[in-house]
């Protein structure tokens, strides 16, 4: 974990220097934006998912129409049917 933060900060320093040389203002902005944005996307989406969106895999499995094992996904994984 320590190594990770070391690499991140080193990369940030390199990028700020590069931006200063290229004259991009303000230096390092996109780097910080990307790091924060990526974290927001992951954490935010997961929160939305847990709160509203995600359901068990058999959510759409209907009661009357299909036998259990022919519903998409689950059976493909378990039986390894080639769909090519």
């Amino acid at each position, binding site marked *: 974990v320590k190594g*990770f933060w070391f*690499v*991140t900060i080193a*990369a*940030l320093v390199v*990028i700020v220097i*590069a*931006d200063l040389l*290229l*004259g*991009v203002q303000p230096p*390092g902005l*996109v*780097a*910080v*934006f*990307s*790091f*924060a*944005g*990526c*974290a927001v*996307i*992951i*954490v*935010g*989406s*997961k929160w*939305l*998912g847990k709160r*509203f*969106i*995600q*359901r*068990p*895999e058999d*959510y*759409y499995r*209907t009661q*009357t*129409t*299909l036998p259990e094992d*022919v*519903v*998409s*996904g689950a059976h*493909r*994984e378990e039986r*390894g*049917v*080639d*769909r*090519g």
Partner: protein
Amino acid sequence: VLPLLPRMLRPVWFLGLPLLAGVLLLLEPDLAVRMEFYGYEIQPIRLDGFSRPFAYVFVVIAGVGGVYGLRTMGVGEKVATLAYAGSALGVVLAGDLLSLFFFWELKVASSVFLVWSGRDPEAGRAGLRYLFVHLVGGVILLGGILWHLSDTGSLAFAAFGLTPATSLILIGFLLSAAVPPLHAWLTDAYPQSTAAGMVFLSAFTTKASVYALMRGFPGVELLIWLGVAMALYGVVYAVLENDIRRLLAYHIISQVGYMVAAVGIGTEIALNGATAHAFAHILYKGLLLMGAGAVIHATGRDRLTALGGLYRAMPVVFGLYMIGALSISAAPLFSGFVSKEVTLYAASAAGLSAVVWLLKLASIGTFLHTGLKLPYFTWFGPDRSTEIDVGPTPAPMYVAMGMLAALNLAIGLFPAAFYTLLPYPLDFEPYTGAKVAELTQLLVFTALASWWLRSKLAGERTVSVDADWIYRKAPARVAAAIGGVPRLPEPDPARAWDRGVALWERGILAVRRAVFGPHADLGHKPSDYPTWLIGGVVLAALLVTLGLGHVG
């Protein structure tokens, strides 16, 4: 014609037709055909600056996708593919609304067979839902066209002002471009298709709609915000998705969002950006789906939670997939960089800095999923290579992926030549130090942040509810709330009507079995016919009303 040809000649016909179409396009770069049709002037072919790039890329993907599916697609699937590619070409070449509608519906009718060719009960059901949504969209579109005709007396397909009539046309286009909340058909149906089928599906329908929006509604401000919302919507769902092709399908929505936003900005640079991005998108998304399809073909698995550690078994597919992933992520030297920067430049030139930053946020998500999450959990990640039985990958698949990878690199390396294909002259240099530095920062720091949070990124065995809940779950809930749907009376053999119905159902079943093989009837409920009957009556009533309105 294809099934009638001897087996040896079939590949020639299947790949020769796109090739022939390509040659014709190059020979006649300004072809326009006009004719009179029951007193209306129509123009079935209109090749100009707008339609030409779309026509080119459609022909390219029809040919390369054909190579990809050469070994794996069935004959019926190939027939449907040719019809689908042809009608998509028809849509972008149509110069009037009547031809547009004709090819539009042909496109729906042929593409649904690609969904069904997944040959899975769930594919059958998803195909029916796909058909249902698109038929509703088609009726809305037709209503708009007829209303517009009675308002203005013109069938010309040019930029419209917003009236009630053209708003219906706009809704029809937006549905087919998969703009939320009219998008769920895409992520529902596409991943049910075959490996090659989804390559075609992802290329034609939404991009033909982007073209239609460019023609009909450039500069409609609503589209900017719809596009931005779309770009981010796809990203959020892609975080949650476990099915690799559905993840990529959500990124179709996200990428089409860039194009829709560019159409909404509506300046010449922005329309160039939309065209460029559509062109590049077809090539890199095709490559990504081919890579994912090759994995599914070889392993029979399509969930991130069931994949992992495949690098040693499929290194070449990984390498080719990553070229597509770097292209969609707009890494410098790849095609997406060259095309996406035009759109971002158009947005900042129009003074829309909020749009620029939100689209950059969507770019982060794009790289996060297609460039990091999907490849990491497929080829690296938790090692499941011992339990996965990896079959062979047919050689044509490698050839097709190689062709698309080469095209993506060519666009990325020679942007000036690529820009000459666009509708308006474009003087734009993507390779400046500042832009390259910006994209490098974006990619590197997205990668770092996702490494930091990688434990949260792993696939989960869930499905995500989306707008398709409205027609997949809500009816059952309503039925439960009112105490169940009244059952139809059991068929009484003594009554002629029931005998007729039974005969009809047997006939339908026989046809379905003949076309789709023995599993066709699994997804079919015999009591579907009242739905079709009611739908047919409503449709007919609507058409009669519209016709009367037009005559009166």
